[in-house]
């Protein structure tokens, strides 16, 4: 069961969709938003096409709010939200929902923690009651035994998603090199084993009292419900939860730049080396985000993308190449990685990577390339309106936009950002961001550190 996820909404989903010859508009989302006296934001979106309803709550807290020495606490806390509350004995949260035909999950990112229930339409009240109880009454029954169980579950989650995965530890090494110590993005959401061990019951209680209050949350309901009924239930269950204390200020961080290129090596139990290039990019909804997202796909997505075509399709010296523009509230990273075929050297791939980036910087891209990636993004905006619930469904998007830009129905404007990107924009962001200093991590099979890329782009 995935109760953990880090990436930003939807960007990974790309490689598809359109506009061109015959353009299609992004449908508008109807919604109603209001705020309870205790500060809880409520967003309602009716969609009666299927007798189902999605409940989605965002708490505006993530791993970026953690303190050094307690990394992983926000995500560990997310797990504890399922361990029962004053009126819901341990184990009953899931049993009640499953008895009603509902599924549920949650995830934690650097900036927020989201929780959802996917329900048959008659079970809306149950999810609201359960979510209200854990928002208002979590601590009376929270104890060290519950913390210890989920501490060990989370450690196993870390093993399953990081430590027992090839190249799985690359991320945290890169983050630590990209950001200064104590920067809220310098550690991974999952946290370190040492810090997970250190988390105390008091840490958990303090975290709840500080961040889990109605005035730090937004509740979105999407699907087949009667709005008057939903408002009544929201008011009934959430209305009496007291507003929390004033929240500590969100971390304010300076723009981070690297002084020079950094080259690192990590040995792993892998058959093949892999090189990760990481640059500082932009925060989400920055004016250059759309161009960088499109640039990532021009560089590495389908067979015609620049790096895939050279390395994987034409020369066939790489098994895979990926590019990703990751953005969060405070900062973003642009990452590229290449995995050589057996017998091929990272240095030979590196030469091509640098050539292709230089070419985009010097000459820009073609109109056809831009049309392909724009059309694919446009389709993805339509496709993500197909589902009301879960991660990335309409309820989750309404909360995301509400948090990020203050307007739940931002999907059309969001899509328009991509439509407006020009050829010159893509060339400019390539030059502006990909010629800055970077971190280059070569992950190598044990005993093969000589494959590491070094400053001159050659192997050591």
């Amino acid at each position: 069961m995935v109760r953990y996820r880090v990436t930003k909404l939807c960007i990974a989903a790309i490689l598809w969709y359109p506009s061109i010859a015959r353009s299609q508009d992004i449908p508008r989302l109807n919604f109603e938003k209001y705020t309870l006296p205790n500060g809880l934001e409520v967003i309602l979106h009716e969609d009666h096409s299927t007798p189902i309803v999605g409940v989605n709550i965002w708490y505006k807290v993530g791993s970026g709010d953690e303190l050094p020495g307690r990394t992983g606490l926000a995500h560990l806390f997310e797990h504890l939200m399922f361990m029962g509350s004053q009126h819901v004995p341990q184990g009953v949260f899931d049993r009640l929902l499953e008895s009603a035909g509902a599924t549920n999950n949650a995830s934690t990112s650097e900036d927020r923690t989201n929780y959802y229930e996917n329900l048959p339409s008659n079970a809306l009240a149950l999810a609201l009651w359960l979510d209200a109880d854990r928002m208002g009454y979590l601590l009376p029954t929270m104890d060290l035994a519950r913390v210890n169980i989920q501490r060990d579950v989370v450690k196993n989650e870390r093993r399953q998603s990081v430590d027992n995965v090839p190249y799985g530890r690359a991320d945290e090494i890169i983050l630590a090199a990209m950001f200064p110590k104590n920067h809220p993005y310098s550690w991974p959401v999952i946290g370190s084993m040492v810090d997970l061990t250190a988390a105390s019951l008091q840490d958990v209680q303090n975290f709840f009292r500080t961040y889990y209050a109605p005035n730090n949350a937004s509740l979105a309901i999407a699907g087949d419900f009667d709005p008057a009924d939903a408002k009544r239930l929201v008011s009934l269950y959430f209305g009496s939860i007291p507003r929390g204390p004033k929240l500590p200020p969100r971390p304010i961080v300076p723009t981070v730049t690297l002084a020079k290129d950094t080259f690192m090596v990590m040995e792993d139990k892998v058959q093949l080396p892999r090189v990760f290039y990481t640059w500082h990019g932009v925060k989400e909804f920055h004016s250059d985000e759309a161009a960088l997202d499109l640039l990532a796909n021009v560089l590495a997505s389908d067979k015609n993308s620049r790096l895939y075509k050279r390395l994987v399709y034409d020369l066939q010296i790489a098994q895979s190449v990926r590019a990703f523009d990751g953005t969060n509230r405070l900062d973003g990273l642009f990452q590229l990685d290449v995995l050589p075929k057996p017998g091929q050297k990272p240095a030979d791939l590196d030469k091509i990577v640098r050539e292709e980036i230089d070419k985009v910087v010097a000459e820009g891209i073609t109109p056809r390339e831009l049309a392909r990636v724009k059309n694919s993004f446009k389709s993805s905006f339509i496709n993500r309106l197909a589902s009301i619930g879960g991660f990335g469904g309409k309820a989750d998007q309404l909360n995301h936009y509400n948090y990020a830009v203050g307007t739940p129905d931002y999907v059309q404007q969001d899509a328009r950002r991509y439509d407006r990107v020009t050829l010159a924009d893509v060339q400019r962001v390539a030059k502006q961001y990909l010629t800055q200093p970077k971190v280059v991590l070569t992950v190598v099979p044990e005993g093969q550190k000589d494959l590491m890329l070094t400053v001159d782009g050659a192997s050591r």
Partner: protein
Amino acid sequence: MKKSHIFLAASIALLAACASAPVAPTNQVDMSKPPQLGPVAELNLPPVIQRELPNGLRLMIVEQHELPVADFILAVGSGGTVDPQGKAGTANLTALMLREGTTTRSSLDIADQIAFLGVNLGTGTTWDAATVSLHTPTAQLDSALALFADVALHPSFPDREFDRLKKNRQTEILQIRDRGPAIADQAFASIVFGTQYPYGNPLIGTQQSIENLKLADLQAFYRTQYRPNNTTLIVVGDVNTADMEQRLRNLFGGWERGEIPPVNFGQPAASGPTTVYLIDKPGAPQSSFRIGAIAVPRSTKDFFALTVLNTALGGSFSSRLNNTLREVRAFTYGARSGFDMRRMAGPFTASAEIVAAKSDSALTDFMHELRSVLDTIPSDELARAKRYTELRLPWSFETTQQIATAVNTVALYGLPTDYYNNYVRNIEAVTQADVQRVARQYIRPESLAIVIVGDRKTIEPGLRAINIAPIVIRDIGGQPIQ
């Protein structure tokens, strides 16, 4: 499934945000009991229009007008089970080659069209089918359908692309060595079914079988199996049935019928007494557990009873396996079980990634849960499993892609056309006695393959000490070590 264009109908007034709370909050709320829920709303399943073309191609069309998109699945009823002996991966590579060139489009042309149109066009295989699938905005319907039909009907199998895919596949297979869970999946299949039986080999092939493959093998597979009388074409989305039918007749009407040879599956390996197959993955922080045996085909009359049984055993968060191994013992991030039902009997598998140091205790817990589920399941637990299974049905009919997948299951396994209409009733009809009977019939603790991939040095002494079954050491292919 309603069909109104609800998004476009949103009123401007509603878009003005930030009204105040319409109902005053109360301090009188009684939180002590969960709310009583009203009756479950009925799911109105969309009608499926069926047609058969003169060449035998079966069409199944569902109109769903919520978004301006459509999904297509062309399902050829021959998948990995038809791979010739020693040539595992034939069906899969054949499907991948469809996107590598047609008589009028190169590999790069096809990729260019897919991105330019903003469509998803995928090809792939399961054990029972080869599929070409398309998801398209309806604005691009003409071009997208032309591309879809071209890929399905006129592949050119270029040499250069075949060599490229082969090398890519061999590297992919090499990299499985990096991943304990993937090693466990493959070894489990080869041990349970034996490598002489189709299900005992990976769908993607082995180093050896891929090495053996020639382009002619793929062309032969395509020529023999990709025939309209072996195929169903499913369409779901914002389309007009009559118009779509005409388009499909134009595009696929000329596809020639062929004789589909019967498949000789042979016999799977005989099951033996419960044995632990230990595969060394030095340094692995977790051990990958795959426990099970050959179970049932999709055609089993026990489908509904087995589905309910599995929900209670390992098919939901509050199931016994997940509750014990995760929520009580915290040995894992999640434990589960499943009956993988195929045209022939597929496996029952219970699985988890277990922290290395607790491998022995976890095996004891696994065996305890597999034995205790043979006793009568208490009625409240059974009721929960039934309701969880039946009430989630609407969530499988939300998107065009989900509906297409659901229709495909009906077509592929020859289920009754009212299968989903009767689904809830059939789950509801399952009794405690039914569940106990199928549990005892298909979960046999005395005859299980227990595959564990982990750090042998750490886990072997404990596994020997608990003495649950004989332990044999296998290589990463699941075979005896030479």
